[in-house]
């Protein structure tokens, strides 16, 4: 049994409803990430945000990117962030001020930035470009391992360097007992 393309009575496409729900979850949890007082909850809200974004990638026709988003962001980076939070939490930290003194100018700047982006997006005529395409995993693999194989290998070396650098920086010095 397949669902009809358009929801009956309210005449909205299922894709649009799904997109709206995921976008609302993503923006809401992103706002929680930057405003919550307890930083471990910020980290958990960040995982929700990344999951919703992965859903939006699927709607946008990039399932490979969505899978990588789940593996790398939710699986690796979020866990790394949570571990770093646990290693650097002090008892006094959550009770004290969350924001710096420039929080109000920063909020104004962020609202201005969002407005400028929205206006410039609305003012540009994308109509000439807007030929919607569907999923593209096979073509991505072709391009990734033929045309972009050198950047691919360079990124793997970069990741190795980052891992070694991270271990080196986070390593306890000899004799540093505290």
């Amino acid at each position: 049994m397949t669902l009809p393309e358009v929801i009956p009575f309210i005449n909205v496409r299922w894709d649009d409803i799904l997109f709206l729900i995921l976008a609302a979850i993503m923006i809401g949890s992103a706002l929680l990430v930057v405003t919550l007082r307890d930083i471990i909850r910020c980290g958990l809200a960040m995982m929700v945000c990344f999951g919703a974004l992965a859903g939006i990638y699927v709607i946008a026709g990039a399932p490979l990117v969505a899978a990588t988003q789940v593996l790398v962001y939710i699986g690796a980076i979020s866990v790394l962030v949570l571990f770093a939070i646990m290693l650097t939490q002090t008892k006094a930290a959550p009770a004290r001020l969350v924001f710096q003194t420039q929080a109000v100018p920063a909020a104004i700047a962020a609202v201005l930035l969002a407005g400028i982006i929205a206006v410039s997006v609305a003012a540009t005529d994308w109509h000439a470009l807007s030929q919607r395409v569907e999923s593209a995993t096979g073509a991505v693999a072709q391009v990734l391992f033929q045309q972009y194989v050198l950047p691919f290998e360079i990124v793997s070396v970069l990741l190795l360097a980052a891992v070694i650098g991270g271990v080196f920086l986070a390593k306890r010095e000899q004799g540093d007992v505290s």
Partner: protein
Amino acid sequence: MTNSLDAYLVLSGLLFAIGSFGFLARRNAISMLMSIELMLNAVNLAIVAFGSFVDRLRPNASVIALMVIAVAAAEATVGLAIVIAIYRNRRTPLVDEYDSLRQ
């Protein structure tokens, strides 16, 4: 709505603005790093959206987004290691208490 590039780009712009606010306003160094991750994700969303709507960019955009994710993973590793290294010296994760150059 899912057939218009504008919706994706406005969403990406909103996420980027939220991330920039968090980066400028939060006191905790790890919060700032999380805000940077939000901004990187916003840029990735814009890249994927362009790849989905512009025929010529279709596979390339996904590859670029994958590269951005890999580099973001490297950035998170090194950034968090630096935060932990500073924390061991200064005993605080709050960036406005890293003021040894000012004294």
